[in-house]
């Protein structure tokens, strides 16, 4: 599923790469950018965490011309007026002017590297609202954000991730060189898909998925131990042999209404006792009714 996400998403999706200090996710973000450039999409990057020279290294030269970097790394808050983009410009209007200023103004990919920087400097409520505005604005086809989850309160991370259509959490794996990615994807119909995969990134920024981690294999041994035969170590015999079973089935149970028993009861044979009764005028037909004798 990780590869499906990297293949590109439908319009209006919002993907968050969630990482932590122990397992940085920038390289995965970069490989996504690489894949998008290969698909000939326009990519706009709001860069706060790396210099403008750092990101294009490793990408193809002729791909790089579709990459537009709006750097806020040197001066993120606009103190010395050196940046082309500051944190406070993060509004849907200024983003759409940024994107439409490029000659090929078809729907573009917006990469935010990283959301954490915005969360540090803006109110989370404001960020959520603006992200939603940008998403519905139409100028941007897909929003990609990198979020360092260990830098913020869980509540803020939860609120931002609640907005996203796809969340990819990158976690370190103790054994081996592969990295674990947990992908949670919400489809438009409300279905939720989840998968855990081990992946690695090659030198040329292609992602290789090695194996899928499924939970069923983890829980399987547990249930096996539980399902151990409880009748194994008993001091008495619970099992039936074939002969014993036959004998058991021959026994007529006392309260089972078999066909013979029924017919025997219905057609009473000759010589059986019988009660003959002719109703009398003073008979009490209904024991329950106390007012029987009244004319009502």
């Amino acid at each position, binding site marked *: 599923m990780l590869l499906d996400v990297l293949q590109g998403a439908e319009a209006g999706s919002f993907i968050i790469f969630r990482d932590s200090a122990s397992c940085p996710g920038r390289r995965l973000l970069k490989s996504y950018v690489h894949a998008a450039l290969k698909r000939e999409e326009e990519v706009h990057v709001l860069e706060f965490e790396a210099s403008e020279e750092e990101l294009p290294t490793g990408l193809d030269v002729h791909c790089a011309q579709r990459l537009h970097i709006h750097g806020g790394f040197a001066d993120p808050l606009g103190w010395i007026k050196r940046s082309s983009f500051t944190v406070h410009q993060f509004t849907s209007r200024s983003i759409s002017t940024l994107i439409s200023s490029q000659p090929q103004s078809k729907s573009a990919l917006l990469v935010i590297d990283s959301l954490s920087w915005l969360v540090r400097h803006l*109110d*989370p*409520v404001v960020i*959520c*609202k603006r992200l*939603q*505005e940008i998403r*519905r604005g139409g100028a941007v086809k897909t929003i990609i954000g990198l979020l360092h989850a260990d830098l913020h*309160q869980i*509540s*803020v991370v*939860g*609120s931002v991730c*609640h*907005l996203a259509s796809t969340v990819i959490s990158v976690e370190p794996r103790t054994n081996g060189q592969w990295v674990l990615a947990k992908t*949670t994807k*919400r489809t438009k119909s*409300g*279905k*939720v898909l*989840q998968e855990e995969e081990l992946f690695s990134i090659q030198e040329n920024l292609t992602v290789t998925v090695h194996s899928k981690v499924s*939970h*069923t294999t983890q*829980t399987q041994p*547990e*249930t096996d131990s*539980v*399902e151990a035969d409880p009748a194994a170590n008993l001091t008495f015999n619970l099992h039936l042999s074939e002969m014993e079973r036959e004998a058991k089935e021959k026994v007529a*149970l006392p*309260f*089972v*209404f078999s066909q013979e028993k029924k017919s025997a009861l219905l057609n009473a044979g000759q010589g059986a006792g019988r009660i003959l009764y002719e109703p009398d005028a003073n008979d009490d037909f209904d024991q329950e009714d106390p007012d029987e004798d009244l004319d*009502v």
Partner: protein
Amino acid sequence: MAAPVRSMNNPSGITCNTTSFQKKSRSKLVSIPGTRPSVQNGQLLVSTGVTSLDYVIGGGLAVGTLLLIEEDRYDSYSRMLLKYFLAEGVVCGHKLFVASAQDHPDDILQELPAPILDDVTSPQPVQEQAQSSDPDSADDMKIAWRYQNLPKVQTALASSSRFGHYYDVSKTMSPDMRQASKCHTFYLAEQPPVESTATSSMGEAYTDLLKTIQQVIHQQGFDGSAPQSKVRNVLRLGLHSLGSTLWGDDLCCRENPIQSHGLTTFLYALRALLRSSLSVAMVTVPSHLIQSRVLMGRITRLSDTAIALESFRGSEKETNPLYKDYHGLLHVRQVPHLNCLVCEVPDTKDLAFKLKRKQFTIEVGHTTAMATPSPPLPSPALPSPPSASLTNR
């Protein structure tokens, strides 16, 4: 018994109505389509659109009350309940009001499930169930004859009389049908910015929403101020994901929110508005994001009925064999006390929901599953005691 006899002897008695006994005629309110009086307390009820949910909360939603739904983690099932609620309104010809900050209300309305209106097809689920129980009876156990004819235990909840409609989730409602019902929408992003006149404890978004609702209720005459010209009707309000950040509320981001009274004030005012009008509201809240348990408790208290959905998606319960037949648990947090001290307590507290191919149903949950012979489970996998889900947190 005596009175009708006398009036029969005296024919004039029929006209001058001397007898104190009167045939219990139905009140005028019942003439509203899609409503019926409650069996317990005579409150006028409307259906939530999910028949089994109606049963769980005591027959249906009383008109003038507020149903709070705590969203599941990914808001998939709570959104479905909201759509059911609105679809039921469309089918019954009620007026709708949809408010949302995330998706456009028109998008929500486009996804309404298609009703199964044909009465021939509606008993089908019952037949399916009968068929599914047949294989069980095939390898029948020898059983004492007294117990042979006992009714089968039914897990699906349904009341005896039919109320509400069934919907097919796999299809969407036809546009003609949708457009036949009058619908007001409120989309926060499209609202013209209004300069807030006073520093009210509600946020701007909530003030705006409340004013719009008030206007709709007043202009359409749901509050009885302007007599409704033709037929009386019910207004169904569906408010999606209140309290989320998109409503400008920081309940979800902070332990001690700055606007801690925003949502509670809004709910208080909304409930007052509902009580005095022919309207009923369903509000969903992302409770898993709300940090302060105290605030969540207040929000629950300010609504009449409160239920919580807990989806198994992404939790370890998904792989638990105990829950394999279900998609999530349904907790009834609160049932309304309407005009009386006691409320109708649901028969059972452990409820689970599942989404079959077409229908969303709520069933009696895992204790019945535990009663069938199944391997004993390790204690951590056991569900939390059901009583914990109903008591106040």
